[in-house]
């Protein structure tokens, strides 16, 4: 997903500390930011140490979902435009295999053992479960709406949290159904459409839905705390985010962004992009049309706004370096990545990408040394 591999980051830091103390022979890896350039065919690789563009990988049309194995060895990328899943050697940044899963692949997530990968098929009302060892889809999970996002808790992958979004029902009725664009899990054209307003809880042992969490609107990006005790969700129609207790399966707080300027008060925006800092102290989320990222203290109850960070047009996804020092915000409209100093909550740099690249999903991966 669009995250830093938080559990992995902590693991690497622990290994480094052991190595410094002479107690082990662990070797720290190389932290790299992978950026899915949805407007093209590329994934850009930024060296986290220097915050400079290091490499460009051409994978396939409209890269969208990114997930990494827990050891940082393998990277998986779903390309929406050609419906493929690409396996990348994250040490050398080369593609080693690709699999045809069908069009409209969206966000992806992988179990901690690297075995099962979950991918949403936007137009098909279905999340596919891809077995990376058998190299085939082993289960399909039907849902309402349009499958888009999926996350797990870094330290507890018993459940995958699926958040299908919804298309405007009026548009669906007038266009998508008539054109036969929407399909079911089996690939048959749908004759009716059910918008989605809940997060699905899928058990990774059975690949079945074991519960749902009503959120009152079309869910968008979601994030989980490492311990799995909290989910944070953007939903359409709510300029802010929800705090969710996944065990109780209920929303426990609805947080609205403070609107400061007249422009913010009168111009529509939507919340998209949310993630938790690796130290688990803050949750960051973005207001797309207003060009602002908000940082909230999640150690308080209720959560407390601690920073408002203007970043320019269309902030979209959020990742963090494993050392907690840097936040990365993809700016889809500006074809750039905003680099934020986490301690000061200040924009320190913008990494410019090629025009039209449309950066969206990002993830920091600590790849093992070659």
């Amino acid at each position, binding site marked *: 997903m669009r995250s830093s591999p938080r559990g992995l980051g902590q693991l690497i830091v622990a290994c480094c500390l052991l190595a410094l103390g002479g107690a082990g022979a662990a070797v720290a890896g190389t932290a790299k930011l992978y950026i899915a350039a*949805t*407007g093209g065919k590329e994934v850009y690789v930024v060296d986290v140490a220097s915050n400079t563009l290091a490499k460009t990988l051409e994978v396939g049309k*409209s890269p969208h979902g990114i997930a990494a194995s827990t050891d940082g060895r393998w990277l998986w990328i779903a390309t929406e435009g050609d419906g493929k899943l690409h396996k990348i050697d994250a040490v050398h940044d080369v593609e080693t295999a690709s699999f045809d899963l069908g069009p409209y692949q969206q966000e992806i997530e992988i179990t901690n053992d690297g075995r099962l990968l979950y991918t949403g098929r*936007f137009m098909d009302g279905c999340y596919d479960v891809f077995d990376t060892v058998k190299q085939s889809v082993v289960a399909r999970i039907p849902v309402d709406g349009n499958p888009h996002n999926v996350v797990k808790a870094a330290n507890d992958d018993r459940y995958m949290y699926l958040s299908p979004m919804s*298309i*405007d029902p*009026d*548009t*669906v009725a*007038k*266009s*998508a159904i008539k*054109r036969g*664009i929407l399909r079911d899990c089996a690939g048959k054209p749908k004759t009716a459409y059910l918008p989605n307003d809940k997060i699905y809880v899928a058990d990774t042992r059975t690949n079945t839905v074991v519960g749902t969490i009503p959120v009152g609107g079309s869910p968008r990006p979601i994030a989980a705390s490492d311990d799995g005790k909290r989910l944070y969700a953007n939903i*359409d129609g709510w300029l802010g985010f929800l705090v969710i207790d996944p065990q109780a399966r209920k929303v426990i707080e609805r947080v609205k962004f403070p609107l400061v300027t007249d*422009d913010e*008060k*009168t*111009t*529509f925006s*939507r919340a*998209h992009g949310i993630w938790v800092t690796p130290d688990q102290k803050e949750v960051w989320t973005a207001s*797309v*049309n207003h060009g602002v990222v908000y940082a909230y203290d999640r150690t308080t109850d209720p959560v407390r706004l601690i920073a408002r960070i203007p970043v320019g*047009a*269309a902030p*979209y996804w959020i990742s963090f370096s494993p050392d907690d020092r840097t936040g990365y915000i993809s700016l*889809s*409209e500006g074809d750039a990545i905003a680099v934020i100093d986490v301690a000061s909550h200040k924009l320190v740099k913008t990494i410019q990408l090629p025009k039209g690249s*449309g950066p969206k999903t990002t993830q920091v991966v600590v790849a093992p040394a070659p």
Partner: protein
Amino acid sequence: MERRALIGGAAATLATAATRAGAAPSPRFLPLQAPVVTPVSQLETVWAAVPFRARFTKSNGEDSVVPGIAVRTPRRIEAFCAYCPHELCVIKLTDEHGLRCPCHFSLFDPLKGGAWISGPAMRRTYRFDYRVKGPDLVITGIEADLERRLL
């Protein structure tokens, strides 16, 4: 282009264009709080584009400001609502003369009144009510269907 061809107000011209393209008829519009006036002199060059913002009152009494783009196409002057119908990201006119959403890359055709070409939007751009009056492009209304997306 002859002045006559430039007079491409929403009602008559779009109705004709819609008939040709098989598109939807002219929609119902909500009035803007004040007309948005853009000098035609700023749109003399083909594919010149001028962004604007139009303010209207929603049915709940709140103000809403809607971004738009006035474009001189090879055929006429047009005013497009810049909200992508998919998720209301702000679309831009590309160097290739398409209207493109930066969020999910829905693409619309400015030569066909903002008709949907591709992407998840699956409908044309929302429309403004506008006409050329003398030296100005005057925008007076916004498609009513947009309002429910902003409430």
